């Protein structure tokens, strides 16, 4: 097995039962593992709600570290739709040419910095700065802010070796509070100001609601983007032929991005709270217990994907759920797709080979399953193309 491989720990349970079980801090979760079931449950918000106690639909649960609601993430339709409509256009800005140009400048700057160096630690030196700087574009805020976000380290809610860390989350919450106050005093064109000025139900959004959107934007797009970027670099280190292929066939870059999102599934799962006694794969789930939509398992479902455990760079039909599905599909997906597309283009243009030097795997402990989601550390040497 190659070092960049992300094995599928769910295969046997998916085939035999269709579900898995996880305790998660005494708030058990029935994990839904097959793609069709995951989609159906994701769509069925009346039976499987997102609007529980804040933090409860996240697995592992964040109930003990926060009491503020993330928006629109922890709101059910129809109210969810009103919030979503408010933010949708803003989060589609990555489709604009100017946005893409600025992102290209950022990413090529980072890659150029490390090409030819003896060693780069990808997670902290490349992926984290890349993610943080790109976030300044998504928020339309000062580039300099990214230095602060980088200084927070790779996990906003987690310390090294500790599952969940309330103190670390407070740093983010305090920062967002400060930024909202600043935007109230001095409105600008950033996301804080735009949200403070927007209306829902004929009234202005409250600072608490604005905070809910911002916390979601910071938290949802951090580990996920860092994992996707790091895993892509690990993959190219062991598949130089794929890098060469993207150089020769740049038209397949979009497909390659979708395939990597499928294969990497940077977010393993997302929970829902069961509203009434029901069944998942003939398994009873009780009201007020939790299910999870296991995107990582669904994306390896052999009933849908041929050769699910391989990265098929130009996979033509790829109905993956790496960005979730239905009402709550990933708000940041447009931004994330552009990051990955531009990263792949930049690497293909400038890099010949990548040598993997050493690494520490990031393995999620999900009771009966252990899932490698990426790396805590990954040191590589990035070799330039000699023109």
């Amino acid at each position, binding site marked *: 097995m190659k070092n960049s491989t992300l094995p599928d720990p769910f295969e046997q349970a998916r085939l035999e039962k269709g579900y898995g079980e996880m305790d998660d801090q005494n708030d058990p979760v029935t994990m839904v593992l097959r793609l069709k079931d995951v989609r*159906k449950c994701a*769509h069925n918000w009346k039976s499987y709600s997102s609007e529980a106690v804040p933090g409860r639909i996240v697995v592992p649960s964040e109930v003990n570290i926060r009491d503020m609601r993330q928006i629109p993430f922890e709101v059910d339709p129809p109210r969810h739709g009103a919030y979503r409509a408010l933010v949708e256009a803003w989060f589609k800005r990555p489709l604009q040419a100017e946005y893409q140009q600025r992102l290209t400048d950022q990413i090529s700057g980072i890659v150029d910095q490390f090409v030819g160096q003896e060693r780069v630690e990808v997670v902290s030196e490349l992926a984290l700065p890349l993610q943080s700087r790109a976030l300044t574009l998504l928020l339309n805020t000062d580039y300099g802010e990214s230095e602060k976000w980088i200084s927070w380290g790779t996990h906003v809610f987690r310390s090294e070796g500790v599952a969940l860390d309330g103190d670390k989350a407070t740093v983010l919450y305090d920062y967002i509070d400060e930024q909202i106050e600043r935007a109230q005093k001095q409105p600008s064109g950033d996301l804080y100001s735009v949200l403070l000025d927007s209306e829902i139900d004929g009234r202005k959004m409250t600072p608490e609601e604005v905070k809910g959107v911002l916390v979601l934007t910071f938290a949802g797009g951090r580990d996920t983007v860092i994992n996707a970027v790091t895993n892509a670099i690990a993959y190219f280190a062991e598949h130089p032929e794929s890098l060469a292929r993207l150089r020769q066939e740049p038209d397949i870059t979009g497909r390659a991005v*979708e395939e990597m999102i499928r294969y990497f599934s940077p977010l393993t799962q997302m929970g829902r709270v069961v509203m009434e006694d029901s069944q998942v794969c003939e398994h009873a789930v009780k009201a007020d217990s939790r299910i999870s939509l296991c995107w990582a398992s669904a994306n390896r479902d052999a009933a849908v994907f041929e050769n699910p455990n391989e990265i098929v760079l130009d996979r033509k039909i790829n109905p993956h759920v*790496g960005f979730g599905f239905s009402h709550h599909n990933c708000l940041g997906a447009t931004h994330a797709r552009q990051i990955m597309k531009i990263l792949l283009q930049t690497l293909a243009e400038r890099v010949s080979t990548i040598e993997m030097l050493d690494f520490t795997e990031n393995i999620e402990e999900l009771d009966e399953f252990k899932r490698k989601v990426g790396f805590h550390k990954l040191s590589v040497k990035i070799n330039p193309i000699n023109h």
Partner: protein
Amino acid sequence: MAQITFITNDNQTITLEGTAGSVMALAVENGVSGIDGDCGGVCSCATCHVHVAPEDMHKTGPASEIETDMLELDDNANEYSRLCCQIEISGALDGIVLTVAN
């Protein structure tokens, strides 16, 4: 060569000419509102959903199983629904009218 007409949610009628590639790509290149084509045409994002005019259904044929699976959970879907990234442009489509679902 095919003439393809899009009717958007804000009631604009846009007629475009295409020779090859997918209907989604043609729409995105020409900024047809409501067709984002976020995933680039691999059938994962459902942001290119159109309703084919009933009299034009024979030109596109029905949705594939993968499309149907995506669309069956879409509240706007009906028997004329297609994801237009899965419709290849050819002369057979000439004159088709597509109503953008979102």
